């Protein structure tokens, strides 16, 4: 709760910082300091959390150590994001303060999505992460592609929000409550058709938010068209927020009737893995490849929702953070390069061995090679699904798809190490960038060896 209030206030401060402070660098610095403060608030809240505390606001919000831990990790990821990419955010346009304000508001939405206990709060959370993302997508106003991305995202997003509301309404009609832990359809053998229809709407809407097939089609255009620094945020923290909501809603309220929706979601998962991975193979631009790979990774994250067990909660935490760190790293590397195509990476190993080295670590993590955080993330997800035990076919299919993903991820490595060429770097690539990238890469490896660092002590 403290963090929600703090993040809101910090967001407002950032809005006014744009008026008061003209120097872009100072605005980035203020945002970094505020994020650090926010992280402090998160830690304070985590240290003082009361076990089995009553939920807040008449059961609107649930505040337990897991929730706060997830919020803490998301703040930490945002901090990493601003450290790695902050300089490039300042280059997108004039209104730097507002961009950071929007990022703080997305964080507020993320906190709500991590802790809601009421579908209306969930709806507010979804809107809070979506609307700032529509704006961020279109923040490069002079660029037609950016405007197109924003419009597309907004229209589709608004539509899917409508479907979400419809789903919530139907569920309310059937159960008479918005409180997700109070649904009383659980006792009946025959599930009310209203609930089933509502569930379907919820699944459709959430599939859209997490870019799962067949609701994924907006992702490549929006990710490709948006300014790269914001794509990095949308693909990571924005996505993790949508996933934690998906998981919380479906485990807490619909876990008991999982038989009715598990198969649908399993098919969506398989389709997401298939479409994301196969389409990613044909991309020429690394940025677009990362967009498709984010669809493919969403397929793995959906494992958590499909499995409905305790390991899934650990899995989603480890996966969100592992994927976020590696993807942020990849986008930070991408921003150092002039050319976003695979050819732009040609010969990078000769030109800048260090940059090539850290890129290799991020790519390994995304591909799920052992000794990186990405492997442990996939491991937790597979474990959750194997433990659930009903969908072994999906496990095998996902592994085959993971092997396919190695194909397009390794194209980057082949370009960097084995092809001749002159990769062109941006001139403002400084020593501090190098240090940050190396620290991020070390973090990826460290989490690949001791993934339990990502889990709260209690879980």
């Amino acid at each position, binding site marked *: 709760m403290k963090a929600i209030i703090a993040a809101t206030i910090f967001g407002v401060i950032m809005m006014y910082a744009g008026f008061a402070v003209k120097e872009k660098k100072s605005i980035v610095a203020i945002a970094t300091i505020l994020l650090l403060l926010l992280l402090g608030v998160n830690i304070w809240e985590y240290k003082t959390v009361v076990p089995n505390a009553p939920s807040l606001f008449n059961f609107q919000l649930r505040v337990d150590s897991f929730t706060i831990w997830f919020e803490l990790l998301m703040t930490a990821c945002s901090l990493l994001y601003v450290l790695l990419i902050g300089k490039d955010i300042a280059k997108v346009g004039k209104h730097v303060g507002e961009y950071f304000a929007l990022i703080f508001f997305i964080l507020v939405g993320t906190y709500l999505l991590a802790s809601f206990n009421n579908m209306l709060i969930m709806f507010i959370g979804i809107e809070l992460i979506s609307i700032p993302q529509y704006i961020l997508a279109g923040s490069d106003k002079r660029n037609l592609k950016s405007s197109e991305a924003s419009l597309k995202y907004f229209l589709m997003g608004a539509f899917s929000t409508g479907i979400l509301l419809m789903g919530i309404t139907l569920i309310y009609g059937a159960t008479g409550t918005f409180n997700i832990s109070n649904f009383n359809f659980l006792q009946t053998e025959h599930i009310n058709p209203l609930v089933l229809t509502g569930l379907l709407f919820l699944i459709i809407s959430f599939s859209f938010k997490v870019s799962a097939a067949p609701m994924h089609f907006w992702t490549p255009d929006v990710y490709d068209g948006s300014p790269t620094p914001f794509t990095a945020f949308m693909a990571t923290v924005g996505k993790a927020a949508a996933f934690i909501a998906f998981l919380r809603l479906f485990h807490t309220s619909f876990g008991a009737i999982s038989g009715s929706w598990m198969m649908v979601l399993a098919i969506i998962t398989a389709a997401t893995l298939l479409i994301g991975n196969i389409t990613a193979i044909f991309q020429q631009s690394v940025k677009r490849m990362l967009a498709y790979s984010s669809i493919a990774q969403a397929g793995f994250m959906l494992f958590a929702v499909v499995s409905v067990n305790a390991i899934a909660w*650990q899995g989603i935490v480890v996966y969100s953070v592992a994927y976020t760190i590696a993807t942020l790293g990849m986008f930070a590397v991408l921003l150092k390069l002039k050319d976003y195509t695979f050819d732009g990476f040609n010969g990078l190993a000769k030109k800048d061995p260090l940059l090539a080295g850290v890129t290799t670590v991020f790519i*390994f993590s995304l591909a799920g*090679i*052992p*000794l990186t955080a990405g492997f442990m993330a996939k*491991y*937790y997800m*597979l*474990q959750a699904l*194997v*433990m659930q035990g009903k969908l*072994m076919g999906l*496990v*095998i299919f996902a*592994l*085959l798809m*993971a*092997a396919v993903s*190695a*194909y397009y991820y*390794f194209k980057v490595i*082949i370009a960097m*190490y*084995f092809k001749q060429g002159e990769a062109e770097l941006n001139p403002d690539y400084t020593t501090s960038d190098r240090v940050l990238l190396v620290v991020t890469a070390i973090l990826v490896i460290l989490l690949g060896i*001791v*993934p*339990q660092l990502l*889990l709260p002590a209690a879980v």
Partner: protein
Amino acid sequence: MILLLLILIPLLTGLLTFLSKNAAKNIALVSSFITLALAAYVSANIGGANVQAWSCQWIPAIGAQLSVAADGMAAMLCLLTGIIFPVVLLINRNKEIENQASYYALILLSQAGLMGVFLAADALLFYFFWELALIPVYFLCSRWGGERRIAVTFKFFVYTFVGSLMMLAGLIYLSMQNTGANSMSIASIITVGKSLPGVQQQIIFWLLFIAFAIKMPIFPFHTWQPDAYEQAPTQVTIILSALMVKMGLYAVLRWLIPVLPYATAYWANTVMTLAIIGIVYASLIAMVQSNIKRLIAYSSIAHMGLMCAAAFAGNDLSHHGLLVQMFNHGINITGMWVIVNMVESRYGTLDLKKMGGLATTAPAIAIALVVIAFANIALPLTNGFVGEFMLFSGIFQGASQYHVIFMVIAGLGVILGAIYTLNMVQSVAYGENNSGAAIVSKMSGAEYAAIAIIIALIIVLGIFPQPLLDLVLL
């Protein structure tokens, strides 16, 4: 703790080598000799108080431990790894290698991975090292290999990656059956695996076996192998063919047969049939190869097929023969590649038709070639004979109802093996020198040392194999 050093020394010196410039070659050599000394010490004291298993908690939530242990089989393979790497580093001492710091660093890292695979006593750790051994080799082949290296190495990578993911699924499934602590330890995996019902055992069996079969490689999963051997730099080919394929066999012996006894017995005939098809098929193809590297690559498929068949024959004799033969095959095939490397650097070609006359131009190399070729076709008094004799007797006494047929067809492979090997010796060593290379330089000191290690082992173990048997039977 000493077992941990076997992994840590190549790992740390490997990382150190990345930073060195011109000293890389020597750092790597010194490191490999230190590892050899340690491996020899471990093998001599196996079972003793100094060579104890070591373990500590790693990820308790998923039951994984950092745990290493060695029995006779593991010690033997560590010793083999310890012997092969100095040989690998001794040849090509004079060759200029582009970006040599990375080259030697990656070689050492692959050694760390191999040692880890042989010593790991925890499934997750085993999987980590299984991949860690692959990644450096991927970079070595893609960066320093032949013309088609990128595509070929990538095929190799994807094959083995698919296999290892299958294995991962199998191992996760096994570990999930035990809800207690340390569910990833080999003891737990074996207990759980044995008690699984038949159908589950069979599913897991194929998940694991495909991974191991790709690595060995067993027909029909072998198609990556000839290309990869041909395109890899010869030093890396040695690592691949002498050691990495043993990872597959070792995994079968450690992580498959004891874990899933019912499924192993159930599918033994199928696997043996595949392996024996592979022997004949690879031998026939080897006979018509004109590229010497491809010829040896196919001969290696035939040898691995025989060993795999013996692994599934299901009696002690074949099992012991297999352990002995794993070591001997490693030595012999390394010898073959060392010769190939010398011939290639002198004649500048791999085409058998363009060679010849080595016996007159460089008699020492020719003699070494003949000795190693004899060992390769398992003539008595060479090390190959002991192992292969035990393998064949083992297959003949096997539990399968088709044991005689298996033995006869596999025996055919040996005859074919003699034909193509001797053909190769003939076209390399005798006849006219067709290469156009005017001056064929003598062996350098380092090459002498490498060849001496190989030939000494061939002859000593051929006449007096008992120490090796004593080691592997511990």
